[in-house]
């Protein structure tokens, strides 16, 4: 774990409690925001920090807040997206485990900025045991007056409810999350309207990722410029890079946005194990198209990765070694999206399963180039036509695997 003195995450698993967090300066940033700044000033500060959403979509946080109609009567909600399900990503888990108070502090900043009195933390069902610690942190915060009807003794109050999901990747999509929170199947909604105007229980709602919110105390505490300058133009700050797969030191690394992928993999995660070479790298969670070894100098920021034909997404880096058949990767990928498709819209519901059927057959019994052509064609058929980004997240990586590793795949399926 590289620290860089930014202390997003404490070094060990013991110092998550309130007293340790306070000793590290915890809740000071939120106190400053709530007692000494106007909500508009907070929104401005976050906007100037160029904090882009850390859940996958990368939407600028300040801008999203600005879509909530200011002075709108009636309830407003903050939904924390702790449904971390993008394969290869495990950084929100770490924040929930090691720095739950940092999340809560960030939630205070966000809720104050937008004028929201109630927040739900949607935690994926598989993190149930982690949610227990989160509840404890909430209790600590409430007892200290950092949550509840009067935060820091002011007129601003925030109530927080932890809400467990039950095993559906799609609930990481913000409108599916809202549907799930309202007690229904997690199927995305047609947008517009957007959650900022019609969200949870039909009220204006902000949905933010755990890491996005956990970045706020740093911004408010040390200033927007400090945060922004750590990154690159258009994409500020540091972020948590999850690294796994064929590397010597898998783990979560907090590094400046714009650090090169090669640096992360080789200098921080130790590079591939003895005797192995890198064949491919997934840079931003499974939904990000794969990159080849010669492309690893790409800076890890949203624009650079988009320019390289991939995406930063959730910054989940998975290193694939020469020992792993790409056909395996294709199978795992196809299976994931077919399993997790919610089934609402035609192209994703049928396309992901059709692709899986072909790939399963290829892996079990082989096939020919026309099968690979068809997989690419079907991925194109899904692309751009689905109700939510899951379809895109299925189509783009599958297409990339087949087109970029065509020779290997043709050899693998020819029997």
């Amino acid at each position: 774990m590289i620290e860089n003195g930014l202390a997003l995450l404490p070094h060990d698993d013991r110092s998550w409690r309130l007293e340790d967090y306070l000793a590290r300066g915890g809740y000071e940033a939120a106190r400053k925001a709530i007692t000494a700044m106007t909500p508009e000033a907070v929104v401005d500060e976050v906007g100037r920090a160029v904090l882009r959403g850390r859940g996958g979509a990368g939407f600028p946080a300040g801008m999203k807040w600005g879509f909530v109609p200011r002075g709108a009567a009636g309830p407003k909600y903050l939904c924390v997206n702790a449904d971390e399900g993008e394969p290869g990503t495990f950084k929100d888990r770490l924040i929930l485990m090691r720095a739950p108070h940092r999340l809560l502090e960030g939630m205070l900043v966000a809720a104050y900025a937008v004028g929201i009195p109630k927040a739900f933390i949607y935690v994926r069902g598989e993190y149930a045991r982690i949610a227990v610690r989160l509840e404890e942190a909430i209790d600590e915060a409430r007892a200290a007056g950092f949550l509840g009807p009067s935060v820091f003794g002011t007129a601003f109050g925030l109530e927080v409810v932890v809400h467990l999901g039950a095993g559906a990747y799609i609930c990481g999509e913000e409108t599916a999350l809202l549907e799930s929170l309202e007690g229904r199947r997690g199927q995305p909604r047609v947008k517009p309207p957007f959650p900022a105007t019609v969200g949870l229980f039909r009220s204006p709602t902000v949905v933010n990722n755990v890491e996005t919110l956990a970045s706020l105390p740093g911004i408010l505490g040390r200033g927007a410029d400090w945060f922004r300058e750590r990154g690159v133009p258009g994409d500020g700050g540091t972020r948590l890079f999850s690294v796994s797969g064929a590397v010597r030191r898998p783990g979560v690394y907090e590094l400046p946005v714009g650090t090169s992928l090669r640096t992360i993999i080789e200098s921080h995660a130790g590079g591939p194990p003895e005797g192995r070479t890198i064949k491919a790298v997934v840079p931003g969670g499974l939904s990000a198209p794969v990159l080849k070894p010669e492309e690893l100098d790409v800076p890890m920021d949203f624009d650079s990765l988009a320019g390289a034909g991939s995406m930063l997404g959730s910054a989940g880096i998975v290193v694939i070694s020469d020992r792993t058949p790409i056909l395996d990767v294709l199978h795992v990928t196809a299976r994931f999206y077919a399993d997790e498709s919610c089934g609402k819209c035609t192209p994703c519901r049928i396309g992901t399963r059709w692709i899986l059927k072909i790939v399963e057959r290829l892996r079990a019994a082989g096939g020919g180039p026309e099968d690979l052509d068809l997989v690419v064609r079907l991925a194109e058929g899904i692309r751009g036509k689905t109700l939510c980004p899951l379809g895109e997240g299925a189509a783009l990586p599958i297409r990339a695997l087949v087109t970029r590793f065509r020779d290997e795949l043709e050899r693998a399926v020819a029997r």
Partner: protein
Amino acid sequence: MTYAPSPAAVLRIERTIALYPEKPAALLPVLHVIQEESGFISREAEVWVAAKLAIPPIQVGEVLSFYGMLRRAPGGRHTIRVCRNLSCHLAGAEDLLAFIGRSLGIGPGETTPDGAFTLVTAECLGNCDRAPCLQIDGLDQGPVSRESAAALIEELKAHD
């Protein structure tokens, strides 16, 4: 006999419902309470929950069938959830899953005849730096080898 959760569970359920401005929103949390207590959610429980939240029973059924962690039929005393997504696959999850299946004598989605273990597959448990990983009764384990998996299973059998 009409189904009802235990008094302690009912208390938890009522406290949970009170946290939400609209009752139906408490559906998943309430189902979790019931599944924790009974191991699964029976048809009678579906009807009970629907009445408690003033929603149509069919909505409970729809939700139950949508979410992968909710069970409509009894499972084993222990649930072994093995991840088979990318990082875990790279670390040998396929082999691990097959090994565990052979050890228990069941396939994914099945429960051992003695009712001890249910084996299920999972998609990315968010524990990729400890691949291959699994969860036993919701507790993360990883990295898991054939040996450590066998040891975990033995330990559970011993304690049962």
